[in-house]
């Protein structure tokens, strides 16, 4: 049944305890990495019924924010070096942030150094907004992204 999966046996970690935050969204609250992490930690992995957090694809430490300059950098770690789903994960992160964050933030998304065999080409693709826009108009890719974002399977 698992034949064809890129990573058939991922390591699953416990979900981090959540700190209740009631101060966001708030006009005078500076966005910090935890705000962003809270938004994206539950995105489902494109291959497995686990969240990006559970698979350690993402952590709070892999997000940096410069609130003054309006810059967000998310670095994620695919579960395997040849993960062909890396670009889908990147698209999920972009869509989720676009829906829930003020649009004037500049978002850069990268795979963490050394975590992917085609690191440079994946990073280039994830940050070319024309390719991102085109990918999101592709019904098959869009469906895959939506399933990761709105899945109740976790």
């Amino acid at each position, binding site marked *: 049944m698992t034949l064809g999966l890129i990573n058939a046996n991922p390591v699953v970690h416990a979900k981090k305890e959540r700190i209740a935050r009631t101060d966001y969204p708030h006009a005078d609250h500076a966005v910090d990495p935890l705000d962003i992490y809270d938004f994206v930690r539950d995105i489902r992995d494109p291959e497995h019924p686990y969240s990006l957090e559970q698979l350690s694809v993402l952590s709070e430490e892999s997000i940096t924010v410069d609130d003054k300059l309006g810059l967000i950098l998310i670095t994620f770690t695919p579960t395997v070096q040849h993960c062909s789903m890396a670009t889908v994960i990147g698209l999920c992160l972009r869509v989720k942030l676009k829906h829930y964050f003020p*649009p*004037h933030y500049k978002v850069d998304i990268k795979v963490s150094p050394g975590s992917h065999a085609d690191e440079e080409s994946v990073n*280039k693709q994830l940050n070319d907004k024309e390719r991102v*826009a*085109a990918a999101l108009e592709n019904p098959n890719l869009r469906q895959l992204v939506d399933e990761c974002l709105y899945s109740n399977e976790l």
Partner: protein
Amino acid sequence: MGMAIESMELNEVETLEGHTDRVWSLDWNPATGHSGIPLLFASSSGDKTVRVWEQNTLSSNRFTCKAVLDETHTRTVRSCAWSPSGKLLATASFDATTALWENVGGEFECVSTLEGHENEVKSVCWNASGNLLATCSRDKSVWIWEVQQGNDVECVSVLQGHTQDVKMVKWHPTMDVLFSCSYDNTIKVWADEGESDDWQCVQTLGEPNKGHTSTVWSISFNASGNKMVTCSDDLTLKVWETENIELQSAGEFAPWRHLYTLTDYHDRTIFSVHWSREGILASGAADNAIRLFVDNNESEVDGPMFKLLLKKEKAHDMDINCVQWSPGEKPLLASASDDGTIKVWELAS
């Protein structure tokens, strides 16, 4: 001139709202803005529409949306281009087609649809005489089309050579020589070497020629056509020069060479650059800023060849995708942004 130019300002004239998604591109109709014909431009958007805007010269000089072209393309309209006569508008879409529109009694009608690209068409451009069109796509190819009587359009050549998607095509302003730039970091020059529509890549400008080190997004020529400027995701603008563009018509080729690199100005991807007839370079980028550059006349030997004339920070709330100087007498610049607006600016001293 030196003194006057130092004190120039780019003043916002107007913000145009209407598109419901990012505005990718705009193109001024070259047949407007003179001889009493009011200025007019088209804009294209992620909302799948094209809008046509016209200046009201009788009262406010404001632009109003004259038409919304919304029933042809099914995906993002990535770019648009008026024919040299201003009679036809070509629109390129992520739906893999390019449409031709004609103004018939005040209504824009789709008179032809160009099909052939495998996927997203990203750019469309007319040659100087208006009988040839070029398009490019994520499918890595560049197509040349001939526009015949009655708006019949026929593909005359499919050019392969780029190794990644092609971002923009641009014809030389006077010669039938085509330029394309790509996600593969290069600019390619294409010329018709024989009489049988035998288009060939005659030059590739890449890293070994002091070229760009990341995606090249846009190309623009100076008025005389012996210089071009390109902009890139590598955060630089590069100026290129050729000795003799006329040679090209004789079947010979004078290669382009790197002249100057403008670096350390923009902080994020530069999506658009446009050279005005007066020689002012305008650039628009993902850092929300517009910058204007001019030839540095007082340059000493080895000094900078171009200098920053002015920087308009926060020109838009989001990325700027396109900047275009108007064809009219006044120095007007229009900019299109991810924030869904188009702004019209006037350069004043």
